[in-house]
């Protein structure tokens, strides 16, 4: 019987462990997704074809820095509206 009881206790630990991992995994996915979107978007905004060479120009580098900064600001602004204002779903 203690075998069954022990398994029940192990199951509860399993579930909590599973929840902790799921939460950490979700967070990792969100950060990765945000990073990938910024790479994609800022490339389109700052580095147009045709490509003169394989280095970043000074102008492109500055644009990238400002683009990342503005994207984070936009991300926070939209997030603020969505938690404060009317839900659209």
């Amino acid at each position: 019987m203690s075998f069954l009881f022990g398994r029940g206790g192990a199951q509860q630990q399993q579930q909590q462990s599973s929840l902790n991992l799921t939460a950490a995994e979700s967070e990792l996915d969100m950060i990765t997704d945000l990073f990938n979107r910024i790479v994609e978007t800022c490339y389109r905004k700052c580095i147009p074809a045709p490509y003169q060479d394989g280095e970043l120009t000074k102008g492109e580098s500055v644009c990238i820095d400002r683009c990342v900064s503005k994207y984070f600001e936009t991300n926070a602004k939209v997030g603020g509206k969505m938690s404060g204002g009317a839900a659209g779903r």
Partner: protein
Amino acid sequence: MDLSNLNAVERAQMEQLIEQKQMKDFLRMYAGLVDRCFNDCVNDFTSSKLTSKEETCVTRCTDKFLKHSERVGQRFAEQNAQLQQGGQGR
């Protein structure tokens, strides 16, 4: 969507799954909204902070998109209901 062929245990599992998917879909929509409004509104990289013109555009873009999404949801539900009744079923 017809859940009637699921028993009680399955229905509870499905409801938990729906809840997880709704959260995932909300995050997906939020990320897409930031992306769209940034793409439409932010084109001035002479500074690293949003200009007031860009801020206004982002605010309007967000409002418009959320209302748009709500309206699509209403029309979508109506269309889906028509399909169910028409017997085109799923």
